[in-house]
Structure formats: C-alpha cells, structure tokens
C-alpha cells in the first residue's frame, strides 16, 4: 500500500486549514472578557485534546484488527497512531497548563476534570514504548503491545467518567453561554481548528507510515538481492517490524 500518495496535497490542505483556523481565532473570534488574549489558546488546546484522544482510540481499534487478523501492518498503524497521539498529548498538557495559568493563576489545577483525566491517560500511554522495547521477540512485542492498546483504549472513556464524577465542577466558562453551547462567533474558528488538527494528525500519520514502509521494503529488497548477510540485524527496537514479507 502506498502511503506516499497524495501526501503533498494533504500537507498543503492541512497547512491551509490550520492557518485559516488560527487566523480566524486571532482576528474574528471575540476576546474573552476575563481571560483576555490567552484564552485563545483554547483553539489549540481543545482540538489537540480531541484529536489525541481519537488517535488513542484509533490505535486501540487497529490493535483489535491486529489481534484478529495477525497482519503486522495493523500493528504498525496502531503504533504510529499511539505514538503521534502521545506527542499531541504532551502539547495538550502544555497548552492546558498555559491556559490554567492565564485563567486561574496556577500552572496546574485539579479542578479541571478533563485536564486531569488527560494527565492520567498520558501517563498510561507513556509506558507503551518502554513496554514494547522491553520485549525482544518482535512477534510477541507486537501482540502484547496490541493487548495493551486495547486495554488502554477501553480505559480512556472509563477514566474520564470516573474523574468527572470525582469532581464537582464541570469544564468551565468557555462553553458557558446562556444555553450552554459555544457562542456563535467562536464556533467557526473552533471547528476549523478542529478539522485542521485532525488533518495534521492524518498527515503526520501518513508521513510516518510511508517512511516505515519504505525502510521495511528497502530491507526486504536488500535481503533478496544480497542474502541475509547484506542486511544488518535490527537490534532491539520498540518499532514494529513488518516481517520478512514485502
């Protein structure tokens, strides 16, 4: 499967969408009376969070497919999705912290159930790569990683529920209009940013898949041409292998 196809078009689309979204956020969306300009980080923070969480769940779904079919390409898809979501997740925590400082004066607040849940999920997924790395047999590594991705994926919604119940607050202010929805002028930039972040994830995912596939193909060809000696052994790695097939 060629992941490199339409990559350029996708990248351009992503760049355009994100620029539009941020532009709208800067100039079109209203300034928040209390929080001032810093509130606009909401347009980065929330879309990142939504996309990262979807990424983790997508990783879990790919893991289910991997266990069901035994096809190692699903394992690669799962791995790339999770590890990208983890990077985005770090972004969520950082932007969340900045927002907390701007809104409440502290770099971290426990009153924010969504942020707290996110921290827990982040800590959990941060163990994904060390877990993979610590299992040497590649097939076993892939299988155990998939089991983990499924457990963690199921954990995400349960965790959010539990943390929310533990707090008495709800996610404040930004969504607090008279009827509880997003005010009109904020909706357009928000949704465009959301789409932009989703496109960003998709683009980065495709880039990484294409890169890994190309390396695997290269190894496979080298082995076919030069025999087993032509290819240096991979050594220990957390990254999935695609087997000896093409």
């Amino acid at each position, binding site marked *: 499967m060629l992941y490199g196809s339409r990559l350029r078009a996708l990248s351009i689309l992503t760049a355009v969408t994100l620029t539009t979204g941020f532009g709208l956020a800067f100039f079109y969306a209203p300034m928040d009376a209390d929080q001032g300009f810093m509130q606009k980080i909401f347009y980065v923070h929330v879309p990142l969070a939504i996309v990262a969480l979807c990424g983790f769940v997508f990783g879990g779904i790919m893991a289910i497919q991997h*266990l069901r079919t035994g096809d190692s390409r699903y394992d690669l898809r799962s791995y790339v999705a999770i590890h990208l979501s983890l990077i985005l997740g770090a972004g969520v925590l950082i932007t969340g912290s900045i927002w907390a400082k701007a809104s409440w004066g502290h770099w971290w607040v426990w009153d924010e159930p969504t942020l707290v849940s996110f921290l*827990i*999920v982040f*800590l*959990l997924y941060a*163990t994904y790569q*060390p*877990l993979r790395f*610590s*299992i*040497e047999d590649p097939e*076993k590594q892939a*299988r*155990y990683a*998939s*089991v*983990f991705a*499924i*457990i*963690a994926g*199921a*954990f995400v919604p*349960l*965790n959010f*529920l*539990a*943390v929310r*119940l*533990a707090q008495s607050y709800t996610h404040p202010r930004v969504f607090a209009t008279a009827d509880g929805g997003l005010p009109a002028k904020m909706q357009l930039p928000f949704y465009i940013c959301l789409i932009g972040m989703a496109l960003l994830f998709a683009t980065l995912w495709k880039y990484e898949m294409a890169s890994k596939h190309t390396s695997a193909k290269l190894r496979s060809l080298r082995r076919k041409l030069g025999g087993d000696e032509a290819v240096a052994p991979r050594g220990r790695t957390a990254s999935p292998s695609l087997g000896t097939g093409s």
Partner: protein
Amino acid sequence: MRRAVDALLRKELRLELRAPQAVPAMALFSVTTLVVFHFALQRGQVEGDLAAGVLWVTLLFAAMLGTSRLFVADHEEGGLDGFLLAPVDRTALLVAKAVAMFAFLAAVEIVAVPAFALLLLEPAPDAGTYAQLVLVLALADAGVAIIGTLVGALAVQTRARDLLVPLLALPLLIPVVIGAAKATTPLLLAAGAEAVPLRWLAILGLYDLVFGLLAYAVFDFLVED
C-alpha cells in the same frame, strides 16, 4: 473449565503457603508504610479523607509488590507450558490468578486494616463500619486483582518487570482509587461513621465488570505463542 481453575487455584495457594513470595512481603510492607506515613504526615491520627487516602495508597502499593510476583514462579519454572499443554480453556488461568490475587489481597488486609486502625485511627471503628469497609475492600480488590493479573501477565515477559508493573497498573487503577477513597471517607470520620454513598460502589462495580470482560477477551493473546 472449572476443573482447570480448581487445579490451578490449588496449586497457586499451595505454592504461596509453601514458599511465600507475595503475602508476607505485602503485609510487612503495608505496616511499614503506615509507620512511614505517621512520620511523613507528622500526625498521630488521621480521619476522613486523609485517612481514606493513607489506607488506599498503602494497600495499592502493597498490591504492586504482589503483582510483580504473580507470574514469576511460572515463568521461571516453565510452568506456563505445563498448563498450555493441557486441553483446557486458557482463560482458566486468568480466573485462577485473579482469584488467587484477590485472596492474597484479602490476607494482607486482614493484617493491614487492623494495623491501620490501631496506629492511625481514633476512635476505633465499630463492627458496622468494618462491615461496610469490607464491602468496599471487596469491590476494590476485585478491580486490583483483574488489572494485576493482566499487567502481571504483560510484564512477566519483559526485562524490566518490576519497573513496568507499577507504571502500567497505577494509571489503570486510578478509577479504583477514586471510587475506593470516596467510598471509604465517610466511614472514617472522627465525628462518627456515615453511610457509604452508593454511587461509588456502583462505579467500582462497573469498573470491575468492564475490565473483567475485557480481560476475558484479551487474555488468550497473552499466553499463546
């Protein structure tokens, strides 16, 4: 299936009785941790939410010790192969290990909870409070046992087993901590114990159910090759 669980469980319990790996260490660790808490918190007694917190952190970390050891004996002695050769359902191993872990936790709590009451609680809880506490402990222990079995099975094949177990298990157990701590707080108030809010018991029950089913679904993949 029942025959297999029975065989496995007898073996687990007999091994633990014969060559104790988990329970004495966990029990001792709990009591020591309580003493450390006394000095770290600089208090002679705790109550309410602080008491619930001290109790659950202590039990949780003791459980981490036990989880690391849960599959080690099998792994070292090639015992898992012996089971895999038998014409039985693999999930019997999950059930047996989870029940064994639950039993170990219960054994540790028989020591740790009275020790906690003795060292740090004032006034001492009455029978009714203990009864409700046992209910919370049972629900929470079920969750810890299920997650412990999953994580123990995951980690036994890895090289950094003792590190990975807490790193994997603790985030997964946070909903259990939330539920258990919230449920226990009213029981440990100095002014007099109150009833446990049902919603927390429901959350613990829901967690146990969801992860029990999930564990049942994925466990095969952890033991087959």
